[in-house]
């Protein structure tokens, strides 16, 4: 009996279903209820659809970041990768390349940036923080060189617009795509060798090496995944806006890390909850949506956002320490 009681949550935890941050789930639900009362239109299908759609770019990138952070790494380059890949895709479309070519080129560029990050970290031995920060700065610079500061517009090919703007059975396609990416990431992280390798490296890098995990390769692969997902977010955003902005994705790196950590994945690696990441990303989108719905004074926005992050994470801490 006692054993079953102990075992159940463990199993659920391990496969990331319930997992990590129950304090945040509570905070999230409280927030939803409060918003429901304060903003009567919050709980309309239209609004919830919008919120999900707004959460998409951060969520998709945060899936990659969940792998990175679960591996005890960090990636600050995601926002500028989004910008750069979005621009390349938009530019190829404007130049008349077919949609699949343009999208694949964007994704390939994301992968390439991931490879660079990975090589700098594993082969040159530069700390992830600094390596990805430098790549963030360089890519943003490349974006400026490329665009001269001017957005690339006219990515209005109907097939391309489908990615970001159409609906499938009433659900926005970007949301559908995000759910698919989530499922794939979930499978990859919890049901494959690769996922175990990632979390092993995060848990104990030395031990990981000794059980024969090719840690460098896995690390590079994880940064590639992060790059590809950033590119994917960049393509969805470009499709949504029919154009690519040089400043796109600025500051996303912090939003993404916040989403992951709020969700319950610790920066110390070894554990990761993709489900929590979704909650974290949606929570942030809900907060911003709420601020707009309630027409909160411009100047108060950041105070509110920062406070909610703190409360959510603190709630979790409090919840955990009570369990001990």
């Amino acid at each position, binding site marked *: 009996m006692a054993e079953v009681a102990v075992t159940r949550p463990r199993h659920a935890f391990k496969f990331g279903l319930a997992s990590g941050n129950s304090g945040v789930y509570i905070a999230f639900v409280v927030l939803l209820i409060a918003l429901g009362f304060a903003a009567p239109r919050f709980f309309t299908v239209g*609004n919830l659809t919008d919120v999900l759609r707004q959460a998409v770019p951060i969520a998709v990138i945060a899936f990659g970041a969940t792998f990175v952070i679960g591996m005890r790494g960090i990636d600050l380059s995601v926002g500028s990768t989004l910008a750069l890949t979005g621009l390349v895709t938009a530019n190829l479309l404007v130049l008349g390349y077919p949609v699949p070519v343009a999208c694949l080129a964007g994704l390939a560029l994301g992968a390439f940036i991931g490879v660079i990050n990975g090589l700098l970290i594993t082969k040159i031995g530069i700390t992830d923080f600094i390596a990805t920060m430098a790549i963030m700065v360089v890519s943003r610079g490349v974006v400026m060189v490329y665009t001269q500061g001017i*957005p690339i517009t006219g990515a209005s090919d109907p097939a391309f617009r489908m990615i970001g*703007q159409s609906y499938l059975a009433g659900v926005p396609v970007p949301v559908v795509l995000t759910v698919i990416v989530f499922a794939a990431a979930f499978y990859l992280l919890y049901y494959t060798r690769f996922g175990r390798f990632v979390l092993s490296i995060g848990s104990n890098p030395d031990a990981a090496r000794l059980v024969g995990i090719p840690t460098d390769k896995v690390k590079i692969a994880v940064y590639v995944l992060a790059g590809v997902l950033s590119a994917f977010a960049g393509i969805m955003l470009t499709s949504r806006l029919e154009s690519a902005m040089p400043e796109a994705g600025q500051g996303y790196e912090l939003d993404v890390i916040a989403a992951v950590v709020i969700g319950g994945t610790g920066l110390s690696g070894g554990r990761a909850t993709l489900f929590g990441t979704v909650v974290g990303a949606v929570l942030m989108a809900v907060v911003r949506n709420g601020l707009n719905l309630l027409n909160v004074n411009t100047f108060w926005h950041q105070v509110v956002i920062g406070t909610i992050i703190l409360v959510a994470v603190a709630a979790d801490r409090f919840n955990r320490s009570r369990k001990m």
Partner: protein
Amino acid sequence: AEPDYNAVFPGILMDKDIKPTGQEMKPVKKDNRPLKLGFLPTAMDTYYQRVLAGVKEEIDKRGGAEAIELLVQAPSSQSATDDQIRAMEAWINDGIDAIAVALYNEGALLPSIRRATEAGIPVFLFNSPFADNPYYVSDVGYDQSDGGRAQAQWIVDTYGDKEVKIGILEGLPGPHTSQRMKGFNEIISKHPNFKIVAQQPAGWVRAQGLSVTENMFTANPDIEVLVALYDEMALGGLQALKAKGLNGKVAIVGYENMKEANAAILTGDFSATVDTGAKEEGRNIVRAVDEFLMKGNPLPKKIFVSPKVYDATNIKTFDQTDYDYVPQQKM
């Protein structure tokens, strides 16, 4: 007698304060060629590229790089005033001939402006919502509150006494936003039939313009006019309205007359935008340098033109070459 500035700066507003303070540099006739002119916007974006186009064209008219050597430096982002200070200081140490700088926040640049002036380098401002210091020679551009006024006036002229609900997309909190809002409110507040029901920041960028507009229209589906303090945000708003099938039904009033905004007026997606004379601003910078340093003539304190509203009625009159740098024959 006042010199005829209108001959040099076509369309200059003579009713603006034009008296020098006495602390700025005095006009001099410099013979060294090329004159080195430093151009320092708050960032590099569509708007400043257009200003730059005007600068280059006007330089071409004066003999190109052999007459005026243009140095361009721009910070990595709108609010990176450190980058501007650094560039100013380097130029002062380098002893260039003139500096044109756009101010995000005047205070941060004040000591550098003073130092440049003391070093005998005249400073010209452009696209600066505030210009309170006594050191600059001329403030080139337009009154940003006039831009807001122009938006509001278009709404008043279009809707008259009709009860209309307005939503506003602001930029990042700061002087550009506050000046534009000041002008806008001045006019709108006189007409109680206009109600601002939502007013939210969208960080000057399109992606936020999109999401904030989505959210805004959830809370206020009855907004009839969406005002944006910059076309980028308005274009994001347009995407949101398109998704809701509201484009063309809700009036979008933008700001800056970006090329895309201009096109959107032609398709009926935008109702209006404000042209702030970006390219003319660039031309005026070079004209001012020419007058002040090549001819040795005094200048008015403000070289302002008035922003102009474009909507479906007059959009076709807009000269499309005003967007780009058109290389000129050397004279």
